[in-house]
């Protein structure tokens, strides 16, 4: 082999080795950067997970701020936190009411509805007026009438941007329709006398990390199995049957 050939071959080897080093360095750099990115994403996810607040609520039937249907010794419990103006709550109500009522009557579930004020900051005072009226009825006319009133409130739910369309007089009329004696509840509903009750109910919900409505708890655990409210309602009823 001639010297020129040898030199050319060495140079070629040298170039190939350099190319290999280059590509190795390139891959290591990319790997390093990707690794750094994964670490940042991982860190961010960790921060998120650590900031996540678990909803921890008292058992169905034990709150001072709710109305209960069903028997205490039922195998399942459901707690539903809701705001009287929240449209998803209204939808959930209309999809689950008949089934939950039936299941409660059959002794399969104990359901507690816990209204509070989530949305007054955004939509005006309807959530406060309605929840106050609910507590007036609960206080004066008992849980059965209160549950009926609760159902009527959802059947006559105003849109989020027109809470004023249901006046305090309308609330009195609905309470009477539910079975309350007008003289018992009219003044208190008209004066929104039980604002305090609403504030306390809202504080309790917030303290339990309930951050949205409807928040459903099945046997003490948040139940959110469903893409839409309809799915959620269907899956809840299926889980109880």
């Amino acid at each position: 082999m001639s010297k020129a050939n040898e030199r050319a071959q060495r140079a070629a080897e040298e170039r190939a080795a350099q190319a290999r080093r280059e590509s190795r360095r390139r891959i290591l750099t990319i790997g390093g950067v990707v690794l750094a990115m994964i670490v940042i994403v991982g860190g961010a996810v960790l921060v998120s997970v650590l900031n996540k607040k678990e909803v921890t609520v008292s058992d169905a039937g034990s709150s001072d701020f709710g109305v209960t249907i069903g028997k205490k010794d039922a195998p399942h419990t459901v707690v539903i936190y809701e705001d009287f103006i929240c449209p998803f709550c209204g939808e959930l109500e209309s999809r689950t009411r008949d089934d939950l009522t039936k299941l409660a009557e059959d002794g399969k579930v104990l359901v507690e509805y816990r209204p509070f004020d989530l949305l007054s900051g955004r939509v005006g005072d309807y959530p406060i007026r309605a929840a106050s009226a609910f507590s007036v009825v609960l206080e004066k006319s008992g849980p059965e009438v209160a549950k009926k009133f609760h159902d009527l409130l959802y059947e006559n739910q105003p849109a989020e941007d027109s809470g004023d369309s249901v006046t305090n007089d309308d609330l009195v009329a609905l309470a009477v329709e539910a079975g309350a004696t007008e003289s018992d509840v009219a003044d208190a509903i008209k004066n929104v006398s039980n604002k305090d009750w609403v504030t306390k109910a809202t504080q309790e919900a917030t303290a339990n990390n309930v951050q949205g409505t409807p928040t459903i708890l099945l046997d003490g655990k948040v139940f959110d199995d469903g893409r839409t409210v309809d799915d959620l309602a269907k899956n809840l009823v299926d889980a109880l049957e």
Partner: protein
Amino acid sequence: MAATSLGGVNGGLAWVGLLARLVTGGVWIVAGALKITQPDASIAAVRAYQLLPSSLAETVGVALPGLELVIGLALVLGVLTRGAAVLSSLLFVAFIVGIASVWARGIEIDCGCFGGGGSDPGAASSYPWEIARDVALLAASILVVYVGRTRLALDSVLFRPRTARTTQGEGD
């Protein structure tokens, strides 16, 4: 790999690319950072679109803010620029589809783009503007993908050929 020339017409594009990187990256960093410490709101925001099954909505709600932050950092610094811009484009497409889909279904929600989220009466009027914004940012991201080598990108330091080619008279 052939190095794109940074002179002439491409030079101008490289500067525009830098601008696109900074704007898009900045938006991602803000959007991600605002949500990282608010996971419950973030999950609720994803859920409000009513597109994903519940468990997936939770995963997306927790992981998305971190991903947004990293894409933003990568774009602003110019690290793995092209890849970051591709991811950025894909995410914007997903967001545009998401907003268009709630709009079409008549669901009124806060897009949750910068924290917040959930039901929001009267939100429909802001959908066109939100979609326009995302389309503009998508265009900026695609521009970065197209230009590839932009000005003041860390990539040009990280991936600079270390050994000068003796055969080439001109360095860069």
